[in-house]
């Protein structure tokens, strides 16, 4: 099971409505994943600053201490806190958090990406983080019915293993243990036992080697074994890949204003102009990708 939604806007006029549109899509996918939900939103940001999405106890207190030392801003959003600091301070902030506050988890880092996830019904998760109030250029979301690991916030999607990179996954991988060992040899660390986090790490590894998002996904077809429908986002990109037998459902809609992904059509039914959209099911083993200009 699991439900995936994604929305990549081509028309900037829709950007203020991104979060509201995605929230509606996410809630429709509750039947497919009532355990937990999460989403990543690509909003405002610039290369000089980086946003760390944090989860853990006493976030405001920790952030205040850090900001007094290195500057920056903090916005508490439900059980998460988005800490904006200068990009050059990222390494120092990570080091300080790891040594002084190991209880704080960094779930995503990006110039534009903010990432939120929590156990509970998708409607409650969307409301807790005020998804409907968020603006941006693209976003992906996931509703989870756990199969491979526990129902915890850490096991919820999306997974982010690189700056402004995130992945949501419907399916299950059978060679994630060997991939994990290979990636650990290359210096990747993983926060969970989740197979989807390994897929995210694999893509980050490929992107780090200079692969484009599309070619990184193509290499998944050689190296990943199992069932997957992936929706992946980067600072400027949005991409979809299904395994060679298209085990998990997927449907997409494209108009002049947006590209949208849903595990089921129902998730797309409320989008503006859907009646005139080009609706299609992505082919198995074919990478679909879009880039912002």
């Amino acid at each position, binding site marked *: 099971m699991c439900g995936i939604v994604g929305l990549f806007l081509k028309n900037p006029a829709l950007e203020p409505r991104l979060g509201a549109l995605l929230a509606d899509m996410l809630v429709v996918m509750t039947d497919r994943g009532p355990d937990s939900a999460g989403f990543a939103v690509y909003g405002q940001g610039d290369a000089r600053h980086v946003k760390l999405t944090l989860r853990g106890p006493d976030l405001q207190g920790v952030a205040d201490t850090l900001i007094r030392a290195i500057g920056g801003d903090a916005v508490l959003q439900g059980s998460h806190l988005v800490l904006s600091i200068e990009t050059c301070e990222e390494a120092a902030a990570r080091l300080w958090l790891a040594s002084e506050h190991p209880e704080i988890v960094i779930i995503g880092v990006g110039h534009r990406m903010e990432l939120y996830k929590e156990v509970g019904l998708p409607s409650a998760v969307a409301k807790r983080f005020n998804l409907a109030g968020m603006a941006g250029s693209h976003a992906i979301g996931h509703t989870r019915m756990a199969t491979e690991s526990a129902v915890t916030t850490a096991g919820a999607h999306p997974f982010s293993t690189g700056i402004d990179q995130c992945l949501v996954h419907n399916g299950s991988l059978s060679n994630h243990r060997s991939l994990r060992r290979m990636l650990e040899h290359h210096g990747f660390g993983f926060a969970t036992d989740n197979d989807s986090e390994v897929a995210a790490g694999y893509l980050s590894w490929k992107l780090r080697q200079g692969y484009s998002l599309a070619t990184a996904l193509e290499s998944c077809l050689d190296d990943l074994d199992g069932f997957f429908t992936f929706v992946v986002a980067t600072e400027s990109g949005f991409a979809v890949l299904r395994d060679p*037998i*298209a085990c998990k459902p997927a449907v997409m809609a494209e108009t002049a204003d947006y590209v949208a992904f849903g595990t089921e059509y129902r998730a797309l039914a409320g989008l503006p102009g859907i009646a005139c959209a080009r609706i299609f099911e992505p*082919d198995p083993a074919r990478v679909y990708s879009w880039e912002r200009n």
Partner: protein
Amino acid sequence: MPILDLATTSRRDLNARLHGLGTGRDEGDWRVLNPAGQHALAVGIDAPVTVRIAGPVGYYCAGMNQQATVIIEGNAGVGVAENMMSGTVHVKGDASQAAGATAHGGLLIIDGNASARCGISMKGVAILVKGSIGPMSAFMAQSGSLVVLGDSGGALGDSIYEAHLYVRGQVGSLGADCCEKPLRDQHKQELRALLDAAGIDASVKVEHFKRYGSARTLYNFHIDNAGAY
């Protein structure tokens, strides 16, 4: 004509009312509004009724259909007309995966394209797709006919038994034990009858189709294949 608006009526109410229809007399035309991609609409009907659904439907629409004509004025989700026994299901848009899966009888017409696994394990249904079909279609198809005016994706008819596959366009690849077969008179007649039933005019000629079916090499264990296990 009964009109049910799914914005105000539940799917369960719709299906319960359709299940309450008699099997003997003509139950007329029903219209269903605002389906919004909901699953399991108009499933399990066993009555001579026409149900027009004004918009896209979700999974398993018109599944297990008997006698009824179900017309979907939009796209259909996974498993449309799954396990249909008789009657007609007409999708005016595209169909998702596994259209007509395991269906024993009746006629499934898809005006647009059908996605992967169209007619998987079909057992007697006639399926006619005016557009193209996706990969792995007619997998383990047992009997019945699949007519495709457009192209087929890869692995068509993998492990097929005795279904008749007619494709006018290109076939991405044939699955295991599926091969091209001669289009004999009996097949031309069958194909013409199916085209006529779907309202396709004489400009579509049966001679433009190729027939595919079982090479029958997987029916029995063959010692030469032992190394493959």
